[in-house]
């Protein structure tokens, strides 16, 4: 093992969340298919073929995946109201001001909608962006699909269904450098958490028979 580059790029929370959700839905789809095939075989009366599950579930990966998804999509995170187009537009807008890369990343990750939050992220905000502060905050607000529910203090607007938010996916500037390896499909993001437990339980029952 050799680490060639410890930090080759920084990722935004939204990107990591999409990647993990994609992994999760892939995994669920696979377990479902495996389960279906098994059932079909048994229905056809074939002798149970020994076949290891397509990729034996890696416990560590599942743990970190589920916990990270939980953290990243928690209601105090802005990821719920973010979208790829929104973020791409936001980074383009932020480009006009002299913000550092780290500051831009944090603005994307935390989506500050209040001056207090911006003060924490941007160093010497007063001196550098005294009058442009509201512009930055407005840029952030317009990049969010819906006003974030409660946590950030903006109370207007009620939380809406999050499933409605990702409808179309067009590749945008922001993610361009990664897209060639990462085919993100918005439709795959929707996953059903309850399906998995039921599937596994069913599986065990079959085994007992």
């Amino acid at each position: 093992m050799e680490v060639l580059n410890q930090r080759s790029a920084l990722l935004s929370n939204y990107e990591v969340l999409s990647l993990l959700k994609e992994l999760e839905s892939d995994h669920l789809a696979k377990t479902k298919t495996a389960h279906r095939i098994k059932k079909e075989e048994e229905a056809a009366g074939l002798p149970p073929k020994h076949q290891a599950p397509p990729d034996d579930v890696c416990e560590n990966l599942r743990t970190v995946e589920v916990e990270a998804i939980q953290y990243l999509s928690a209601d105090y995170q802005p990821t719920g109201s973010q979208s790829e187009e929104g973020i791409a537009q936001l980074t383009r807008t932020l480009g006009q001001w002299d913000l550092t890369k780290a500051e831009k990343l944090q603005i994307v990750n935390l989506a500050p909608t209040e001056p207090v939050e911006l003060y924490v992220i941007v160093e010497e905000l007063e001196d550098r962006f005294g009058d442009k502060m509201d512009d930055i905050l407005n840029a952030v607000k317009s990049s969010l699909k819906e006003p974030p529910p409660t946590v950030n203090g903006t109370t207007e607007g009620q939380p809406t269904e999050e499933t409605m938010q990702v409808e179309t996916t067009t590749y945008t500037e922001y993610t361009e450098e990664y897209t060639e390896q990462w085919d993100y499909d918005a439709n795959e993001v929707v996953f059903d958490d309850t399906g998995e437990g039921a599937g596994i339980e069913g599986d065990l029952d079959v085994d007992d028979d």
Partner: protein
Amino acid sequence: MFQLSIVKDTVAVHPSQFGLPPQQAVTNELNKKYANRVLHDVGLCICVFDLSEVSEGRVRYGDGCLWYKVVFRMVVFRPFPSEVILARVKSSDEDGIRLSVGFFDDIYVPLVYLPEPTAFDSKERAHFWLPGSESTSAHELLDSPLTDRMYIDAGDVVRVRVESDDFHDDEPGPPKAHEGVQQVQENRRPPYTITCSMAEQGLGPTSWWQNAGVETMEEG
């Protein structure tokens, strides 16, 4: 808080996995090896992002595995110093506060990085902040009326700034037998810890700052 690291490694694919497309099999092996583990001086590995280079698989003498030399990119959790992150309070004690982000919970806020003046209420098992108070000693603070105290309770969502991170690689040394009795191992340090700060305007429980105006910021 997440970054991409480029790592080079050699992995073995077991014959039972030969049915899978090679890139899938290699990714699975890598995830099995790295996911949810701390890599020294790199961070907490989440999962493989993509494979950049994979050599042809080779069979070695002695086992039936296919060995691949792989260069890949990995998603790693490593908030950089001065980054602001959101976390939940996991627990508090006399020495400070422990935070959690769900998949990682070796995040600490020591006493020096708590907002001034604070004191630890041992009855509530929580630290509280007395904004605007002149008192400095813990006794005076603990005499304050309960209504003025702003508690940092377990489960609160807090905004903190990353101050530093530490990696510890504690090798399990040879078993030390002292007079024939095996020594109890001293408690091991976590491999990766992050130290955070709340001692700044705008940091601390997010509820403190929800409706705070700019006026308070300017004096700070």
